[in-house]
């Protein structure tokens, strides 16, 4: 099967819930979220964000991710033609599963954040497997 043609997904601006002192617009990153028996995996496109520009925050069942771009990359550049806005990224999620906070792993590579959120033992134990005799 021939791979499909990629289509751009226009960046959507988001309003941050709380006021920030940092200037500028925030965009909503495109994400994939998948679940296995043991973990949730969240993959987010945040082009322009270096690995030290990522913040992941879990408060109760609310997960937020933030990615900050390097603003210095645009020094001395005068825009002539524009198809996408430039700025940081922010998105919030409500998790339906108990997460083992200490086991969370985040990796940032080529502008993509991969977040692994292991389910807490308690959440895993809720699942009852019925075995055939």
């Amino acid at each position, binding site marked *: 099967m021939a*791979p*499909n*043609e*990629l*289509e*751009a*997904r*226009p960046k959507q601006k988001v309003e941050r819930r709380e006021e920030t002192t940092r*200037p*500028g*617009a925030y965009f909503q990153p*495109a*994400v*994939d*979220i*998948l*679940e*296995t*028996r043991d973990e949730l*995996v969240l*993959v987010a*496109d*945040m*082009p*322009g*964000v*270096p690995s030290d520009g990522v913040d992941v925050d879990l408060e109760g069942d609310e997960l937020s991710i933030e990615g900050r771009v*390097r*603003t210095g*990359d*645009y*020094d*001395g*550049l*005068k*825009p*002539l*033609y*524009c*198809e*996408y*806005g*430039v*700025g940081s990224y922010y998105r919030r999620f409500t998790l339906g599963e108990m997460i083992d906070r200490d086991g969370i792993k985040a990796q*940032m590579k*080529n*502008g*993509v954040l991969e977040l692994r959120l292991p389910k807490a033992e308690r959440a895993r134990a809720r699942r009852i497997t019925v075995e055939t005799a």
Partner: protein
Amino acid sequence: MALVYLDPFEQLQTELDRMLDAAFGPAGPSRLFPPVNVFDAGEAYVVKAELPGVTPDQIGIEVEDDTLTLRGERPFAEPSREAAYHRRERGSGQFRRVVRIPGRLESNEAKAEYRDGVLTVRLPKAKEARPRRVQIQAA
């Protein structure tokens, strides 16, 4: 008139927003992939494209006359069989993008860099098209 301080990056964001609105209006931006921004850097044109999740060897770049062509493929990550998707917004597939540069180029001096999911192609302007400082001759 009120004095408003905008840092350089904020000024750039405002300018890009204005251009986005002017170019595409309420219909929103084009869906051509990858989206590109073109800048004037004095001696060169700079084209930036958002290409997260590819590796440099998956991007082909060609410069011919005043045309830049980007092509490649963003791979599809096959999930394991036990995984269930709750959200799926990130696309995958092939792309080919042709960008006309609004000026003459020194095409054999083009340079490209891929960092943190953004491709930056620097296309030096043709020698005769570069800004030149004019010296005033002493009489």
